[in-house]
């Protein structure tokens, strides 16, 4: 039962990060390798706002979301937009370039050491014989409410619908007069917000360091391959699958190889079914 909770915690964070990745992929068909770096920058911004400025946890989350959204939009404008007609290999390399740059920059400024992010929610909740750290509950509740808000935004608002329209059919979206630039910028901003919030939620039970995004981004990629690239429910379900697989695998098999489970799962699934689990149609 404890493992279910752990799986749910991991899964909701993975889901949040994968969601940002899948949104960007759905719109621009760019696998944004820099997404993990955005996540890491989000954690550092929250850390700085909380520790150096002594601000409140929620204020820090808000600040990080704003800063990373801005950074993501900047990446879109400066890098991905000029490359939109280039061969696909180019934007992958450019995304790697952004990732390397952000990581090196953070490492130069803050050093490579691990930092612990403070959180106001250190208590432990006892419920039905289960002990649950408050931060974990916050993560689960926070992540799922953010997903719900995103879902409402995409389904119920006009701006949200333009994003969905772009993802479904580019030419069709152009025909009905959707401004591709605006949608692209907005998508990057949303993915930045998701990454920053995910980082601020997760960092207190993890640690903050320059390479913190590496493993996460790779798992997020595994998730969106499993869930079908560009699919929003796929990202959430995939996130939970990987989260549970890791929680149970780490408990029953070996904590040493915990991180390998996601990748092994990917290899096995893609060897059997190269199109991913939930994809419809080609690829």
């Amino acid at each position, binding site marked *: 039962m404890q493992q279910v909770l752990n799986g749910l915690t991991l899964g909701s964070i993975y889901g949040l990060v994968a969601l940002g990745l899948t949104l960007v992929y759905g719109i621009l*068909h760019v*696998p944004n390798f820099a997404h993990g770096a955005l996540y890491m920058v989000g954690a550092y911004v929250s850390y700085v706002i909380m520790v150096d400025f002594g601000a409140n946890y929620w204020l820090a989350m808000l600040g990080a979301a704003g800063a990373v959204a801005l950074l993501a939009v900047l990446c879109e404008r400066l890098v991905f937009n000029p490359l939109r007609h280039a061969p696909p290999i180019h934007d992958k390399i450019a995304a790697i370039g952004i990732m390397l740059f952000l990581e090196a920059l953070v490492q130069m400024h803050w050093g490579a050491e691990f930092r612990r992010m403070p959180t106001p929610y250190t208590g432990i909740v006892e419920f039905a014989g289960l002990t649950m750290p408050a931060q974990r509950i916050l993560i689960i509740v926070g992540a799922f409410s953010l997903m719900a808000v995103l879902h409402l935004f995409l389904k119920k608002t006009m701006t949200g619908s333009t994003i969905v329209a772009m993802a479904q059919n580019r030419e069709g979206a152009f025909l009905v007069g959707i401004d591709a630039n605006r949608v692209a910028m907005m998508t990057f901003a949303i993915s930045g917000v998701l990454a920053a919030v995910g980082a601020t939620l997760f960092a207190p039970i993890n640690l903050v360091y320059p390479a913190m995004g590496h493993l996460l981004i790779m798992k997020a990629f595994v998730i969106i*391959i499993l869930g079908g690239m560009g699919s929003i429910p796929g990202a959430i379900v995939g996130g939970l699958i990987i989260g549970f697989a890791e929680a149970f695998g780490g408990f029953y098999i070996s904590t040493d190889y915990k991180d390998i489970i996601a990748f092994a799962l990917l290899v096995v699934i893609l060897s059997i079914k190269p199109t991913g689990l939930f994809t419809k149609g080609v690829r």
Partner: protein
Amino acid sequence: MNALQKISDFFMTPAMKLIMIVAALLFPFVAGNEYQIYVMALAFVWAIAVYGMNIITGLCGQLNLAHGGFFAIGAYTLAILTVDHGWPFWWAFVAAGVSGALLGFLAGVVSLRLKEHYFAIFTLCVGFIIYLLIDKWEELTHGALGIINIPAPSGFGLVDFTETTPFYYLALVFMVLSIWLAARIANSLLGRSFRAIRISDELAASLGINLMRNKVLAFVLSTTYASVAGALYAGMVRFIGPAEADVVHTFDMITFLLVGGIGTLMGPLFGTLAITWLTQSLQFLEEYRMIVFGPLLVVLVIFFPRGVVGTFLTWRGRRLAAVQETAKKESASEKKPQPNKAVTPRNQEAGNHA
């Protein structure tokens, strides 16, 4: 024909190859100190791996992000066989190449069923699995401690490869062989098939090219290059650890490839040497080199996606085309058909592979 044109023509002549080889042979005599020779030898070893990456990524157009992993597989195969099992160096060296090819075949058969982004992401994961296995499988790889006291290549009593200068020549020989083989592949039917696949899967398939077989072959060739380079690296540095499999090395190699010119023959060598010496001369860059390399990658793919060598070749091709054009006009105005000696299309095409 102006001076610039003459210089650019000179770069394409066989004499240039000779000059480069002679320069490489003389380098240890003009180098200021042993350290410079060491750096150069190390750059040669990396260049071999980058040539491998050029086959799958440059020729065949599949971004392989597990390349650093296969480099480490070569290094570890050599180290485990020589240190733990007492194999002689050269037998272990051959085994390293074979293990790189075999594991590359296995990884390739699975990963090449995926296309483009899926392939890149999948290989990134493969690279990470290799890293994690090396780091955690302590019984086999000594885990985070790494493997020390790897023997240097045996010189059969004639040469001592623990010395820097003999090793430099050994690395040079392997690198020249690699470039020669890469050139043979690039200009063969096989290389043309690879290039057709890069342009479009559907196009290549409609020409009767077996996609899977060619892609797997390109992948196996590239992983063999990587593992041979890794084995040489282990014999040179003589200490290896899990950091060898770090994805950072793959990104380094992408930078080398992109700076030099992706898909060109001399690009990998040029990029590797240029960046290696740039980081060496700017020592403070060593740790934070990615602050420069990251934006460099972005700027290169946006403005110079063909790298230094590729940009040169494009520029030269345009000039030649212009010369050809004016020659045509002149001959047309003189109303006298002249054999056009300036350029033939065959020349231009050959230039594209240089």
